[in-house]
């Protein structure tokens, strides 16, 4: 039992997780900056800072350049207090600008992860306890990840109540609509697949209700992953299957969720390294 609840991360695990995380984060912010248009409605940090500045190429390149420099420092573990603070600010600024344009990547979790890492290093600054830092910089992001799933479940129960699991007909329509939108966006030949999914889900209402019950329970009990490293891995696999199911039925994928699952939750790059090494 003690071993099952053990929480210990090696330096190599941290190195793999953070390097993959920051590289994918860089890729995502570059995409948001590239797609950026003039802000229509300010959200988040755009209330305080003018996000329309991001429309200027000079500002775009300066921010991306700063993000690259800070990412290199982050990977090299240099001046982590200032580095994580700078990365948090850039993350909040760029994603707030993207959200203000009505394109929600659900990137809040990425900024939150950088912020809690800043706190892990801040606590270390006041109390030089290396083992605590090694644990906190990994476990704080896990806490935030668990929180986003629980919040999503709370929101469902708050808006629709427990009857959310009985919306099987609406779920079939939602799946078809989501695939149709992806067809409109990218032009993939997936309309016949949309019809197939709709027919399958409409003809099996009890199966859909079961799926919805399981989905709600997975989200609601996501806090279980906080208890230990092993539980994080087990729950991570459950979440991976959960998102795979969403992708297959609705063609919906949330890039930040994929990033956090493959880095801090499952640490797939490290697992691959361990497999190759052994």
């Amino acid at each position: 039992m003690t071993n099952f609840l053990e929480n210990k991360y090696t330096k190599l695990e941290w190195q793999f997780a953070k390097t993959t995380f920051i590289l994918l984060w860089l890729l995502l912010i570059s995409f948001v900056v590239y797609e950026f248009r003039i802000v229509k409605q300010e959200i988040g940090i755009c209330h305080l800072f003018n996000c329309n500045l991001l429309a200027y190429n000079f500002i775009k390149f300066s921010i991306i350049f700063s993000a690259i420099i800070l990412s290199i420092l982050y990977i090299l573990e240099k001046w982590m207090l200032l580095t994580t603070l700078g990365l948090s600010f850039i993350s909040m600024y760029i994603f707030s600008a993207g959200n203000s344009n009505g394109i929600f990547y659900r990137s809040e979790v990425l900024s939150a992860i950088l912020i809690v890492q800043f706190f892990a290093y801040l606590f270390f600054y006041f109390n030089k306890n290396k083992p605590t830092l090694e644990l906190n910089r990994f476990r704080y992001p896990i806490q935030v990840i668990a929180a986003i799933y629980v919040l999503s479940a709370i929101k469902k129960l708050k808006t629709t109540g427990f009857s959310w699991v009985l919306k099987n007909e609406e779920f079939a329509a939602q799946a078809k609509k989501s695939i149709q939108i992806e067809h409109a966006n990218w032009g993939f030949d997936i309309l016949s697949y949309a019809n197939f999914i709709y027919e399958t889900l409409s003809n099996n209402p009890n199966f859909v209700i079961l799926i919805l019950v399981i989905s709600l329970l997975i989200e609601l009990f996501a806090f279980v992953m906080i208890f230990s490293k092993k539980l994080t891995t087990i729950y991570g696999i459950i979440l991976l299957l959960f998102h795979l199911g969403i992708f297959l039925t609705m063609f919906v994928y949330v890039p930040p969720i994929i990033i956090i699952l493959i880095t801090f939750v499952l640490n797939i790059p490290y697992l691959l390294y361990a497999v190759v090494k052994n």
Partner: protein
Amino acid sequence: MTCLAILPIIYFYSWWFLGTLAEFKEWYANFGIVLWLLKQVFSILYVLILAVTSLLLLFKGIKHIYHSKLTKYLTLNFSFFFLYVSLSLIIGEEHPFSIYPLYDTIFKGAKIYYFTDQNSNHIPNMTLTNTHSQFIDKIYKTYCDIENTNFDKIKKKPSSLNKLGDFILQNTVDTNTIIKLSITMLNFHIVECYTPPYRCDTTLVISKMYD
């Protein structure tokens, strides 16, 4: 002990404890004032003892909870979990906080936006506008807010449809892309979907010629 001490207060509550000076004078003609003063002092002391006892009990309880292993474990492992959940529920949709409203209402109707060329071939939004349907939806909603209208009203008049189409094309389509894709006529459609049962209606919003 505290619970037992409350009992006499409840017993005398409506009668003695809240009695006014006039009432005491009426009840005890000779020594009403003295009794009233004694009652006041006694009441104040009683309330004070009760308050101090309650506070001590509360403090002891908090201290016990604070020093318990469970509290230490929760503080160490769940602090940012509770903090993020609480702040997100209070603050709402303000980056980096969010309540993650992912399919909280599963389906309540939808609009899908798409473009076709002179040969009625579908042109993906990402190819033509370099953005998603969600961004076009944002432009559409901005138009409705400015004009204080909705799609049911717009659909009734071809001129209103043209005006909406022009607004959306101006804010999404780049002329260079039109030239690059050799488009001579661009059609913009809005597909409205409803449930149950799932059905969609397509409306041609605008057909624009390009030289």
